[in-house]
């Protein structure tokens, strides 16, 4: 812990970064995100086993970017987000100072994307057995049962867009939901608008989602949103051999093709 603080202090002092994105104590024993801008504030940084949030999303927020060169405490999924964002030309190599936080609480500086890529290869990028099981359960259902399941879940949705705000991949300045010529996604939070929104979101994250789970965590109504995008990870891996957030110069699975891509439903 102390060495993290030392490191950040030093980084801020020698002006190599002007803001560091890390974790701090929030109210009611919760963990919150901290934006450390002066070495004085550095010691309020914490890193405990509860610090699981993927902070990469902040790297693209204009209000954060405005503060100057950023440093970030990145967990595994944050690293993958950064790789994916890089592949979408949102972050340049060296632009951000990456400190990787391992689960055991140790920190390593990752000077460039190469080192990040090398590290990611050593990690398990899959979804948890628990998540796999929940997906399997859903897949075992009949279409109708699934329809009802999601209907029930979506009934809870209040279209607060917290999932969108939390997702590091949802960085568009103008989301499709805000497009009104034509109005693809009904604004109202009625079944139609909600279903459209979530289908659209899932489809837009297909092949880009790094299964960090921020969307589900952010949902005030506890809708298991992550399952929608997680379910697509498998097929995309098996059919196209593509996994999101592995390389900084990856080509997006849906903007490339193989002449012999396999499917069994086109006659």
């Amino acid at each position, binding site marked *: 812990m102390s060495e993290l603080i030392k490191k950040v202090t030093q980084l801020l002092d020698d002006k190599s970064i002007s803001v560091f994105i890390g974790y701090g104590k929030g109210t009611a024993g919760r963990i919150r995100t901290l934006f450390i801008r002066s070495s004085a504030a550095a010691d309020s940084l914490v890193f405990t086993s509860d610090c699981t949030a993927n902070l990469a999303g902040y790297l693209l927020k204009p209000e954060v970017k405005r503060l100057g060169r950023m440093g970030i405490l990145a967990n595994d999924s944050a690293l993958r987000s950064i790789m994916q964002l890089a592949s979408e030309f949102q972050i340049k190599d060296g632009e951000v100072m990456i400190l990787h936080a391992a689960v055991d609480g140790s920190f390593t500086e990752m000077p460039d994307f190469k080192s990040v890529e090398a590290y990611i290869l050593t990690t398990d990028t899959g979804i948890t057995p628990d998540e796999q099981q929940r997906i399997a359960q859903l897949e075992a259902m009949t279409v109708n049962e699934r329809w009802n399941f999601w209907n029930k879940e979506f009934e809870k949705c209040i279209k607060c867009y917290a999932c969108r705000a939390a997702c590091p991949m949802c960085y568009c300045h103008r989301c499709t939901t805000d497009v009104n010529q034509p109005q*693809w996604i009904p604004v109202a939070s*009625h079944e139609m608008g909600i279903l459209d929104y979530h289908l659209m979101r899932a489809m837009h994250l297909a092949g880009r989602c790094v299964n960090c789970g921020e969307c589900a965590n952010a949902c005030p109504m506890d809708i298991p949103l992550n399952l929608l995008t997680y379910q697509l990870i498998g097929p995309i891996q098996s059919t196209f051999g593509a996994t999101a957030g592995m390389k900084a110069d990856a080509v997006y699975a*849906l903007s*490339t093709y193989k*002449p012999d891509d396999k499917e069994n439903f*086109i006659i």
Partner: protein
Amino acid sequence: MQEFEPKIVAFVCNWCTYAGADLTGTSRIKYAANVKIIRFPCTGRIDFMILMKAFENGADGIIVSGCHPNDCHYSTGNFHARRRWIVFRNLMNFSGIETDRIQFSWVSAAEGFKWADVVNNTVAKVRELGPYENYRKIAVSSLFSAEGTNNE
């Protein structure tokens, strides 16, 4: 009460399937009148959201059709489309949308007969499945704003 007539919308590419459907016409091959065709330049242009829109506006079935692989007028549009459909079909299926109601096909400009078959088979299948009640229900209950979205 009369038999249920499924509403089917076909999204086809201009160069192969649209031309193929023209050939069906010039060869006077009959097929069910339930299908209305909307022309796109290429299957690559067909946005997944247009399929969502079709269902929520009362389509009981959808046909998406374009050039056979390697025949795309733009050389790769249908390849990209194919990937998109592989993924979207997964998503629809997982979120409980009846993928049986969407027929994807490759129909070339020379396959007038095939087009007729594709249409007739799809109409038969969807007639079997009946009206898409699931979608209808939520569409109706959302009708008010759904109207709102029609004429922005």
